[in-house]
């Protein structure tokens, strides 16, 4: 089905006709298998995978099945930060690839996802942290990304209203990635969905995968709330629900599901330009284009599928906020919510085939998979289409745990709630 092309012109044209000519952004498709590829999970990663499969890998007959409404998972509830400021060689090329895809995304998918590169600033508060950030900044530059080290004065110049007066942990400087920033979360899901739909992908909402059909060791399709759907290859991109769907194939994953909370304040006239992360407490913040302060902190720390958290973390995050940015004290918190994090055992993702033929896994994104959306889609599509990992995702194998080739950015070990 042909949808409208979006442009200022179409906007004006439609305005003149009473906006009656707009078509659905994506069709309400029903299953019409067999498909060559089924992607389970209509989050950012699933939709991006379908898009790149169709667009770059010539995939035909592709379906995305989503148990609820697309974009209702983590892609629709994250704090929208994109960056490629990773330390380890297993990660940095992948995230930088993602950053580059963000940079051309809107023109590519004809959807304004408000990719806003106003910078991500990670503050440090002692010499050890500075050294760690210098190491990281150098890694980034070696991988072709951008990084700038700011001393305390430069941080003060950039954001004069941080706590420079009576801080318990004084700000010593920060590592800035100027190309980092934020992207409008919902628009990413909708934009990929619309673009994939235009390439013929069936996006099937309210269709939950309930089982996997395996014949002679090979996955041949999925059971869903809308019946059996046959497929050549099946890609799981279910983020916080990864363990549940993997269990349908008899697999246990190196993943725990945890809740991460996020917060938005009432809308305010913009005064926070870039993303700021506090290095001495659990707090990070940015201000959306609507004016809300979007902030968050650490995960609640216990296994959960509840999409909501508890007061201690809320209080902890607000304490961090006050310690860093005292002027937001009288600003009011408007809403807080939670999402299901697929916390992996080393804090890094998995994009790999599973021991079951025809079944592929994209999971383990922890609290950082939004920024990965384009590259995750691209690499997963690559794997599904070619049966070999994309060059920037070669480290994300399942067997890395057995081999010990873990990618542990934080050095916390096999304890997901500490990553």
């Amino acid at each position: 089905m042909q949808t409208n092309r979006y442009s200022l012109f179409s906007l004006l044209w439609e305005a003149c006709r009473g906006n009656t000519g707009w078509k659905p952004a994506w069709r309400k498709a029903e299953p019409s298998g067999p498909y060559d590829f089924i992607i389970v999970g209509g989050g950012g990663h699933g939709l991006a995978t379908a898009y790149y499969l169709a667009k770059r890998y010539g995939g035909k007959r592709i379906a995305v099945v989503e148990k609820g409404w697309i974009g209702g998972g983590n892609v629709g509830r994250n704090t929208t930060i994109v960056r490629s400021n990773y330390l380890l060689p297993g990660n940095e090329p992948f995230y930088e690839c993602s950053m580059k895809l963000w940079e051309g995304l809107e023109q590519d998918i004809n959807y304004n996802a408000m990719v806003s590169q106003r910078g991500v600033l990670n503050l440090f508060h002692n010499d050890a942290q500075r050294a760690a950030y210098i190491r990281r900044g150098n890694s980034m530059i070696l991988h072709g990304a951008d990084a700038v080290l700011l001393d305390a004065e430069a941080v003060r110049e950039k954001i004069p209203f941080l706590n420079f007066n009576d801080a318990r942990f004084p700000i010593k400087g920060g590592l800035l990635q100027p190309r980092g920033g934020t992207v409008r979360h919902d628009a990413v899901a909708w934009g990929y969905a619309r673009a994939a739909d235009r390439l013929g992908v069936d996006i099937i909402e309210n269709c939950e995968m309930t089982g996997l059909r395996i014949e002679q060791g090979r996955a041949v399709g999925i059971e869903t709330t809308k019946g059996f759907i046959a497929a050549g290859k099946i890609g799981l991109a279910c983020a916080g629900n990864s363990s549940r769907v993997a269990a349908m194939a008899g697999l246990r994953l190196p993943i725990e599901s945890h809740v991460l909370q996020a917060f938005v304040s009432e809308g305010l006239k913009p005064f926070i330009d870039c993303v700021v992360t506090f290095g001495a407490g659990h707090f990070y913040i940015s201000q959306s284009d609507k004016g809300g302060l979007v902030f968050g902190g650490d995960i609640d720390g216990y296994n959960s599928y509840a999409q909501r958290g508890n007061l201690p973390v809320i209080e902890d995050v607000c304490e961090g906020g006050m310690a860093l940015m005292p002027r937001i004290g009288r600003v009011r918190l408007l809403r807080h919510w939670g999402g299901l994090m697929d916390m992996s055992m080393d804090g890094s993702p998995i994009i790999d085939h599973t021991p079951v033929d025809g079944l592929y896994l994209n999971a383990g994104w922890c609290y950082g998979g939004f920024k990965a959306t384009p590259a995750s889609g691209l690499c997963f599509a690559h794997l599904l289409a070619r049966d070999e990992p994309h060059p920037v995702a070669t480290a994300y194998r399942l067997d890395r745990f057995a081999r010990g080739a873990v990618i542990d950015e934080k050095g916390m070990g096999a304890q997901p709630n500490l990553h």
Partner: protein
Amino acid sequence: MSAAPAQIFRVRSGNGVDTSQTLHFSFDGKTYTGHPGDTLASALLAHGVRLFGRSFKYHRPRGLLSAGPEEPNALVELRDGARREPNTRVTVVELFDGLNASSQNRWPSLSFDALGMNGLFTSVLGAGFYYKTFMWPASFWEKLYEPMIRRAAGLGRAADEADPDLYEKSTAFCDVLVVGSGPAGLAAALAAGRSGARVILCEQDALPGGRLRDESATLDGKAGWQWAEQVRQELAGMPEVRVMTRTCVFGAYDGGTYGALERVADHVALPKDGQPRQRLWRIVARECVMATGAIERPVVFPNNDRPGVMLAGAVRTYLNRFGVSPGRKAVLYICNDDGLRTALDLRRAGVAIAAIVDSRPAGVGGGAQVASQCGAAFFPGGAIADCYGHSGVKAVLVRDASGKARSIACDLVAMSGGWSPNVALATHLGNRPVWHDDLCAFLPSTLPPGMVAAGAAAGVFDTAEALHDGAVAGQRAAVACGFAATLPVLPEAEPTRYAIRALFHALKGVPSAKKAKAFVDFQNDVTAKDVALAAREGFVSVEHLKRYTTLGMATDQGKTSNINALALLAEITERTIPQTGTTLIRPPVQPVAIEALAGPHRGTHFKPTRLPPTHQWAEEQGAVFTANGLWMRAQWFPRSGETDWLETVSREVRTVREAVGFCDVTTLGKIDIQGPDAAEFLNRIYVNAWLKLAVGRVRYGLMLREDGFAYDDGTTARLGENHYVMTTTTANAGGVMAHLEFCHQWLWPELDVQFISVTDEWAQIAVAGPKSRAVLEKIVDASFDLSNEAFPYMAAAELTVCGGVAARLFRLSFSGELAYELAVPARYGDALARLLMKVGEPFGIAPYGTEALGVLRIEKGHPAGPELNGQTTAHDLGMGRLLSTKKDFIGSRMAQRPALTDPARPTLIGIQPVNPEDMLVAGSHLLPQGASATATSDQGWLSSVAWSPSVGSWIGLGFLTNGPARKGEIVSVHNLLAGTIIAARIVDPVFVDPKGERLHG
């Protein structure tokens, strides 16, 4: 102050205001008067002020919609300077003398707002328009489009500075929490309270009573609010009942925990000295009665946002509670009998009723009778088809049942689309409310454990029934907590009728852009057309609708708009309301100041500070301090004449290498370990062997995590047959303690061993340098032989000092010099430092701080925090050979995995610039000389660096691929962040005294 204008709309004395006193306040620079008990809304309304703010997107003029916390329109910046509070709903601001507020989101003024022009482009600025444009050219987004969008973003302005007010937190426990003090809540509290149960009653308003204050109805023949006051008094006399007004229960959390915010001093000009502005309550309740009442719905009709269009119930509130009439000539637009009360109350206040437009067909409800009572034109089956008046209602276009329209002049439209039970708290734990067609309302279905809804919140709208419902709920809750509770005798209430017929909008057919704007969400300017457009574009899930149109996402969270929106969506998509569903409500019920959630732990008290025993003394010495976790430690001790820290630190290092220095190392974790299996336990915790350590000796130990990576290190001394004392790094002290408990309680409960932290028990001071023994001889009691033979390197002893004070001495050296760590009971730490200064003076003693400590350990190649970063293995640290192959220990198996033992892993090395003056920077990367600066050439990094006065060069520790095999090689040290490349030589990590002779001296 200029003379304040008169309160021409104050028509009588309301039950909640004290007109005997006058308060002065200002709005947009103009001075007004009001009375105690007024809200900013009622006081301005009393002056005939109708224009309060501008909407978010179209900057439409807006007045009051409501009289409560659900207000979407009338938001102001309250107070100024550091106390400026943006987006404050005037309907909940209690008036105080000197109050100062200004309108927001307008320029240059509230009455003339340039961005009001946006309204002209509404067809372009429809739902989601920004997703469709601003894409070309790409570079214009950051430069042009986004700055433009951001200029228009937001409503009020955050304060520019830190808030000077105080905030407090408290935890309260009760048997029964009652939320809301309307008839239902009061009856519940009474029933539960009389039983002796511990009851907390929270009311967000300043006054108890709920709708009893808003209505003219009576209880036992007296004004309803008088009964509320009487109950409040009785409750106040019950020792186990606590009535908290100005306290909003804003969230329900797991385990019967509720968050509540008490506004302690928002109703006064300034908090008194020491008084908090607000207090956060964590209330832990066994049972909870949610008696939160209901919120009235507006009706969606064209231009329904004109100032002067109000909720019918709010009109009654202004009349009855505040004695203010929101207009002179009213039109009512209703679909239920409750709204008719507004006509009667208005009439009693002398306000003309021009018309009653009742969407119900003729014969349903009491409209005809009330209309004739009020002398109002009556339009059964009618609708309001439009509303006129730019900055205030002047007339409405009324369409009668036959479709004929006529214009009726008025300055007030009181509307009621029915009441939505205020179910928020019942849904916070994920329970979805259920639609009831007869009541046209969502009601709670399954509730969180221990919670019950009562009164209007449960759909019980009749006062008599609400009283009874509340009483039963309170009684049951008390009984559930084990109290013998009975139903209280309740007052007699006037019977009421509701007789609602669904009414959500007055539009004909699916709205299109051609029609005037009919607002669904007032603050975010979401119109019926936007809902239709979203549906057309496929955003037919309510959650999609919400996100695409931003409906219900404003500061009011759609309290008055969500249900109209989903009803519209249901209609457009030809589904029922239950099929369409509702969006998820999230806490907080009302927005809460971030600082209130943070509480008192601010500024330097953000986290507690741990002070070592010598802190006070070090302060006197003029030490410079640094935070090390929670600890505050002396970083260096400057002396007069020293020009920079490096000079100071180098002097401290030289003092240790050449004479003697001392340093407080109390912060290292110290764990007392006792028991018959203590040795076996240590053997399983550490990688190296422990069974044969002799009493009176110390050993270095390395711990891994179970995944085989290095975790922590330190020394453990054997003080007795079954008695050890372990030291950990400062950073990991707490973690190691939990780890030991885990291993002991969960993995090996059969091992007989006990631990307790003695970190704070002992002041532990390192005394290091060639003259350290000479100094210690002056302190240690004579009976103890300090000679190298009697007390060699790695010896430990319990002894006495200064004539009998129990102490512990360890011959340990982090600096590589002849060195000791002396531990005395913490109370003597301060005195010990002073004593060391005194007895050490002849030997040239000086204190040294963490910086010199760092230099000394780097000179000796000892790994510390930067090396033990959780990503390194024993092999990486050059300690691979420590790993015992003869026993099981934590991490033993996983450490053997191929990737952990790969010889190509970056391994600990020393590094020294070819030019000694070239400053090394920790975090720089190591690349082969001449290789281009790309990731493929990256071979390692520098973890720790120092200027070594002993070597006369910058030195560093780092990790390098195949490191140890490359000694002598020159590599390039890249710090690309600073654009520097330094040539440096790979050397042994031990820079000073590589044979370790000085240790043993």
